[in-house]
């Protein structure tokens, strides 16, 4: 997978956190994900289809996910439940939607995005179909560290 395909997702992640949460997030060095390492507690996942296929996942430690949704709702969310899932799902949806437009402009790949799914579970890992490479971008922020993973197979 061309690393250039990841740049729109990095840019849209930075923009979404800035606009929706008013925080600066800093991307680290993207790494090719060979195994299911880098586990988190809450992941928002959106499938990508069209002229390229794959998925994007935003993965957070539980406490960070709670802080994010609390800030989005302007109300403290203390427990893992529907509010957390909906908030993380919507954040992932916005990152994916914005990135696909940029990807289309930069590479001519026209993608459709699925409705978001959110997985909650301590130290779960996000895997991908065999043959579709994944690139993990670690992010740091004042709220904590999180991961953004893109897997995309171009045809």
């Amino acid at each position, binding site marked *: 997978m061309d690393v250039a395909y990841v740049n729109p997702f990095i840019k849209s992640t930075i923009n979404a956190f800035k*606009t929706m949460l008013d925080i600066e997030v800093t991307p680290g060095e993207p790494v090719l994900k060979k195994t299911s390492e880098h586990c988190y507690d809450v992941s928002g996942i959106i499938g990508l289809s069209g002229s390229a296929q794959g998925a994007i996942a935003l993965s957070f430690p539980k406490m960070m996910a709670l802080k994010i949704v609390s800030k989005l709702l302007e109300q403290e969310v203390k427990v893992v439940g*529907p509010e957390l899932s*909906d908030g993380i*799902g919507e954040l992932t949806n*916005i990152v994916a*939607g*914005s990135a696909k*437009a940029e990807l289309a402009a930069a590479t001519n790949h026209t993608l459709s*995005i699925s409705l978001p799914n959110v997985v909650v579970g301590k130290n779960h890992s996000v895997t991908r179909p065999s043959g579709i490479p994944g690139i993990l971008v670690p992010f740091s922020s004042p709220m904590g560290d999180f991961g953004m993973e893109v897997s995309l197979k171009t045809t």
Partner: protein
Amino acid sequence: MKVLLVDDSNTMRRIQKNQLAGVGIGDVVEAVDGQDAMVKLQNFMPIDVVLLDWNMPVMDGMTFLKQVRTDDKYKDVKVIMCTSESEKGKVLEALKAGANDYMVKPFTPEALKKKLGL
């Protein structure tokens, strides 16, 4: 001004409702998808503005928009698409189907205020 807020995400409805409150709009009706929005539109007229998400289960925003634009009694209802779909083709598709304006998520309260003409 009465606003119909249509989005399947409770989080996004809360964000937009808070943004609307911030610009002085408290008369807000919420709907969770296009089908729900058709019912709410009928029951809560006069509605001045619909803030409409695109990707929703049951009935999506585009289907809702097309239905609304076939009914003359809603001709004065302003529809603003509020969606993460930001490709030029999508914007043109929405405008062609009768959307009055288009906002790409995420947007700031200032941007919303401007689109509402406040």
